[in-house]
């Protein structure tokens, strides 16, 4: 604890100075309740530090943070928004989930308070905007790609990361020949399975029609069934660890992230946050140098742009409680270069929402991820959040069922079209 505090002190001082500069006076003393999913340091400490710094700059405003476990925060927010006393600021991932939450009528339109600076956040804010109005601000973005062990690739005689599915299949064969688990996947959580389906569809479908059909919640284009077939073919190569359907993605050293961190598997398809997760699952931090990253390989014959990426973001929305303006101002502070730099330096986030903060990235592998993200043709929101919300969950389930050997090429399409 002492160490954490000491490490954070310079950060707090810096944030404090920044907060003073953006400071404005609000009339009466107010306390804002804020719900985050950051139950662990360093992010937990950074949020608290930002709240303290903001309070120092605006003595009338106190931000009270309640960290809630990621697995249960969605349910808590659902109930809070249905009640008369939701928190003032709450975590969400924008897109369809936010759209559903907006139906409560308690998510504040903060367009007015953000228009002077929303340009700094740029395209990242898109998942929190509806009909030209802003309903929240992200503090980080993520994209999905393969994290891999350079040392295990070397053992299997693989000289460079694969760029096509054919090469990926060959590499899987080489790793298996050395009795190395080629890919770890957290099948118990289902959404990691859906990443594969999402990306196969992303590679096969044209951008325009894909986006339109996802939004409508009806998948008509043949490319969505083809994506199912590509996934089935891929599953046939049995690239995953034994019992992957029961493996969780992030909990404990036996999770898929833990397997890569501990050298028990060579690859994992996961979001940009994975480095932070892996670091929390291996006490010996020297493994970090052995970790590399490469984008999902190209799929032959697809209409989709091969540089398109799958991703999303984390952010906060304000509720219609009396203080939406203060909330928006605090979210501005969270997206300021200084706070963003703190998050990047602590490896809490990888892709900041303000480009300037990316300069603080030290690990070459993370620089590579950020570089890929900035050059991507476009970043497609995870299908489970791009589809109408309940329908998105049906997609995750169907993709996971295919991983468990149930359902043909059209399983996902059928599940989505019957869930709407």
């Amino acid at each position: 604890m002492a160490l954490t505090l000491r490490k954070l002190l310079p950060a707090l001082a810096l944030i404090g100075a920044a907060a003073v500069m953006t400071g404005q006076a609000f009339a009466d003393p107010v306390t804002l309740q804020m719900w985050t999913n950051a139950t662990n340091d360093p992010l937990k400490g950074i949020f608290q530090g930002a709240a303290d710094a903001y309070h120092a700059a605006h003595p009338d405003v106190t931000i009270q943070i309640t960290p809630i476990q990621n697995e249960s925060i969605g349910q808590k927010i659902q109930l809070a928004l249905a009640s008369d006393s939701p928190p003032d600021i709450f975590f969400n991932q924008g897109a369809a989930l936010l759209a559903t939450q907006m139906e409560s009528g308690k998510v504040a339109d903060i367009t007015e308070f953000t228009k002077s600076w929303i340009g700094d956040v740029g395209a990242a804010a898109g998942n929190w905007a509806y009909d030209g109005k802003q309903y929240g601000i992200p503090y980080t973005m993520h994209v999905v790609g393969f994290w891999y062990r350079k040392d295990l690739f070397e053992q299997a005689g693989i000289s460079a990361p694969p760029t096509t599915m054919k090469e990926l299949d060959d590499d899987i064969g080489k790793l298996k020949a050395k009795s190395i688990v080629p890919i770890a996947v957290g099948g118990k959580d289902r959404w990691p399975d859906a990443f594969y389906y999402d990306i196969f569809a992303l590679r096969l479908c044209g951008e325009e029609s894909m986006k339109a059909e996802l939004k409508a919640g009806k998948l008509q284009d043949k490319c969505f069934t083809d994506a199912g077939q590509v996934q089935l073919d891929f599953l046939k190569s049995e690239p995953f660890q034994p019992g992957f359907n029961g493996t969780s993605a992030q909990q404990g050293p036996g999770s898929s992230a833990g397997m890569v961190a501990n050298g028990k598997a060579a690859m994992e398809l996961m979001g940009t946050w994975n480095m932070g997760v892996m670091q929390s699952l291996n006490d010996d931090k020297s493994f970090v140098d052995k970790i590399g990253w490469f984008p999902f390989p190209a799929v032959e014959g697809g209409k989709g742009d091969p540089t398109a990426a799958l991703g999303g973001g984390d952010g906060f929305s304000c509720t219609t409680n009396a203080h939406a303006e203060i909330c928006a101002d605090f979210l501005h502070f969270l997206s300021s270069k200084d706070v963003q730099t703190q998050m990047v330096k602590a490896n809490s986030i990888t892709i900041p929402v303000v480009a300037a903060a990316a300069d603080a990235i030290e690990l070459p592998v993370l620089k590579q991820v950020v570089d890929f993200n900035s050059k991507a043709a476009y970043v497609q929101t995870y299908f489970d959040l791009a589809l109408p919300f309940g329908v998105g969950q049906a997609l995750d389930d169907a993709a996971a069922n295919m991983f468990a050997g149930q359902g043909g090429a059209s399983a996902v399409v059928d599940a989505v079209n019957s869930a709407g």
Partner: protein
Amino acid sequence: MSRRRFDLRKTAELTLLIGPSLGLFVLFVFVPLITAGYYSLFNWNGFGPLTKFVGLTNYLKILGDPLFQKGISNSLFIATLSVLIQLPLSIALALLLNGKMRGRSVLRLLVFTPYVLSEAITAVVWLILLQPDGGLDALLRAMGLGSLIQLWLGDPNMVMWTLFGVCTWKYIGFGIILFLAGLQGSPEEIREAAMTDGANRWQVTWYITLPLLAPTIRIWIFLSVIGSLQLFDLVWIMTRAGPAGASTTMATYLIDRGFTRYALGYGSAVAIVLFILCFAFALVYQRYALRRDNEGAVTRGAEA
């Protein structure tokens, strides 16, 4: 006049004694039940007014959903296996522990320990033990039984058996304690009399001890079936109802639809279906199986 006063006092007494619990029952069971029944008629995500009235559509969807049917069959699977395996095992162990032997209290305590643990802790402990190459696999290998190793939680065909195993581990202690109490409540004289008449140990157990235990067995079956219908914590933590829905129970289905997918109207309908199933079972079982126990069991049981 005095008669009237007596009635008044009796009424006051009843009100005082039953009132509070009846109040709580109405507030926390009856009202939520009615509310859920009302919500279940709507397509509602928990926000805003109830506008999309859909009648019984939710119920039709639930009963027609193969995943929900899987939930029912999984509950029946656990309930049936419990009666076939857990019940005889509990009785056998109870009979063993009822005899006089060294270390009896310690053994009773040990066997009861898992029941004291919360379901969440049990689930986490077994989740870790059952990982591929985890504690259980290592144990089997060390005993030279490596060929028995399965993907305990990762194989859709295996997972319900695994969960049944964990349920048994957790609840067998409860059964044993229940049966030990039942055994102690049955008069020793009858057994002694039978022994004097020349019955052997096996005959005494089969013709005297077990019939005397029948009321306890019936109440155990009741608790066990209700428990199977409501199975949730263990499954949710260990498998999240997976893989591919293979370990879905009605309760995990409820949480998944109601909260994970923000379909509170649909979730309410699931809750009502679950309630009706439990309630119907409880009523029928009370009526036909438990009634004679409620009328005084030992003498009737012995006569029969």
